[in-house]
């Protein structure tokens, strides 16, 4: 009850809806950090996952990298990067990307590997080139699983992007950190609620993307 009360109070306060520390600004910042991290992680994870999956090599190396990536604590990494690089976007992006690459990479690899070999064999026998097979057969068939990997990466990024506030950047983490510092628990609870809402919105976005991008022929069970 207490928490709900805090949340309610936070959102009812008109002052929280405007200015550089207002909800729209912080939300926009948070989304910007998250999107940037997701795009960077996908730019690394997708091509590597697709290629290794297609050629069926490097599975063990991938598993190793993924475990290592998951074992690294994001906050520790942030502090380390901050010490090495100082303030700025880069020390924030590195832990977020390190966090997000493993689920994207491993799921993409597994998704491509698990595509039924007979359409791939047929495609090759019909004279499709390797890249065409990858992009016109394996990718569309594996897409539901690949999107699943991107989705879990995105959710992790959204909740972890709060750490940006520790290095004086914005985002929803600001409310949580400042609130704790100022003992303003309304602010803390409000910030946490916004992160949760954003995570749910992320789920909704991925659901819509999957509906639009995945062929009805492979949608079942995906």
């Amino acid at each position, binding site marked *: 009850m207490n928490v709900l009360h805090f949340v309610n109070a936070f959102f009812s306060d008109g002052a929280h809806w405007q200015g550089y520390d207002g909800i729209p600004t912080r939300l926009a910042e948070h989304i910007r950090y998250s999107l940037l991290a997701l795009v960077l992680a996908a730019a690394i994870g997708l091509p590597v996952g697709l290629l290794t999956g297609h050629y069926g090599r490097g599975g063990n190396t991938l598993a190793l990298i993924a475990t290592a990536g998951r074992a690294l604590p994001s906050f520790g990494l942030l502090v380390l990067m901050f010490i090495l690089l100082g303030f700025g976007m880069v020390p924030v992006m590195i832990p977020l990307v390190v966090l997000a690459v493993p689920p994207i990479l491993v799921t993409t690899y597994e998704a491509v590997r698990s595509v*039924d070999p*007979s*359409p*791939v*064999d*047929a*495609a*090759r*026998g*019909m*004279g*499709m*080139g390797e890249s*065409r097979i990858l992009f016109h*057969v394996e990718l*569309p*068939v594996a897409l539901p699983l690949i999107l699943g990997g991107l989705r879990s990466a995105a959710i992790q990024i959204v909740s972890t992007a709060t750490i940006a506030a520790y290095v004086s950047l914005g985002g929803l983490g600001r409310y949580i950190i400042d609130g704790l510092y100022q003992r303003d628990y309304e602010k803390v609870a409000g910030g946490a609620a916004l992160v949760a809402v954003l995570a749910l919105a992320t789920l909704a976005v991925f659901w819509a993307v999957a509906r639009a991008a995945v*062929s*009805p*022929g*492979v949608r*079942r069970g995906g």
Partner: protein
Amino acid sequence: MDSVTKRYPDGTVAVDRLSLEIPDRSITVLVGPSGCGKTTTLRMINRMVEPSEGRILLDGADIQEQPVNTLRRSMGYVIQNAGLFPHRTIVDNIATVPRLLGWGRNKARARAAELMERVGLDASLAKRYPYQLSGGQQQRVGVARALAADPPVLLMDEPFSAVDPVVRKGLQDELLRIQDELGKTVVFVTHDIDEAVKLGTMVAVLRTGGRLAQYAPPAELLSAPADGFVEDFLGADRGIRRLSFFASGGLRLQKSPIVSVDSTAEQIAARVTPGVPYLLVTDPDGRPLGWGEPDELTAGSPDPDRLLPHGRPFEYGSESLRAALDGAVLSPTGWAVAVDGTGRVVGVVSQQAIGEAIRSAHAGGRSAAGTEAGAEAGVAG
């Protein structure tokens, strides 16, 4: 194929010095037990597998000489589980190779629709996805997809072995019909000797280790297996199956012991034939109803329910001696009924007369009744 050998990296010799001359515009079947190198042989033809030794020539030119994807696009490829693209509609699956060859979308789709009709698929299936089709329908799509760019060569790897026997028979008949119309050079892999005998103009029997055991037209395979392995592989009743290759047109039919169900007692009495203990009763249109004893038939108008069954009638001329013998064996009277293309009785023939025809066919058979009549009768029987 000129002395082709395939040794896999692990040392397995899948195909061993295989030489085969595959005739144009006919169906050549590769048959043999599982693991004898059939798939490997087939896949060397479209270079999905590269031979370790030997050469494969297509119309006199080494297949190594053209770019691999150009070669593959000129050969239709059908595999066991059809291998349809699950994310594409049926019409887009079929349009794959035309699209690869740079056709416009609409032209490729129009071609795909044409092929759906050719392989006996309803046009309403065009916008469906593969998972919405039965196994037999998927296989038809696979064949249509392979034919889409009108390639001169068609490679088929156990295309019908995953469907039930009834559907399989339909697909086999369809393939023979399409082959009649289009005259492709088909190389067909199967482990089923009956399928090989039914479809093949030439049949290559492979033995384990990838060696050629015999390469011959099916009738010759059945009459003169090269060795014990081929004989075993052909199975126990190859004598009976060989009858599929003898046309029934040579049988001498009896035309007199046949009466219509609405005949009078005098008409029936006139039909009683010496040496034939029964009379065949037909309906007024001339279609067979069954056999009756002359005494009973003349006693009153024939009761169709009390007649003896007549077995399966065979189509005189177009069906084989095997069908005729089958009809005779099925009827308790020992007589077979010959009908024309519309199912009307043209005569009857005894088991004994069929036996004589078989003996003379065997005597004159080895050369004459071989490939030509054999191919015809094989289709029907």
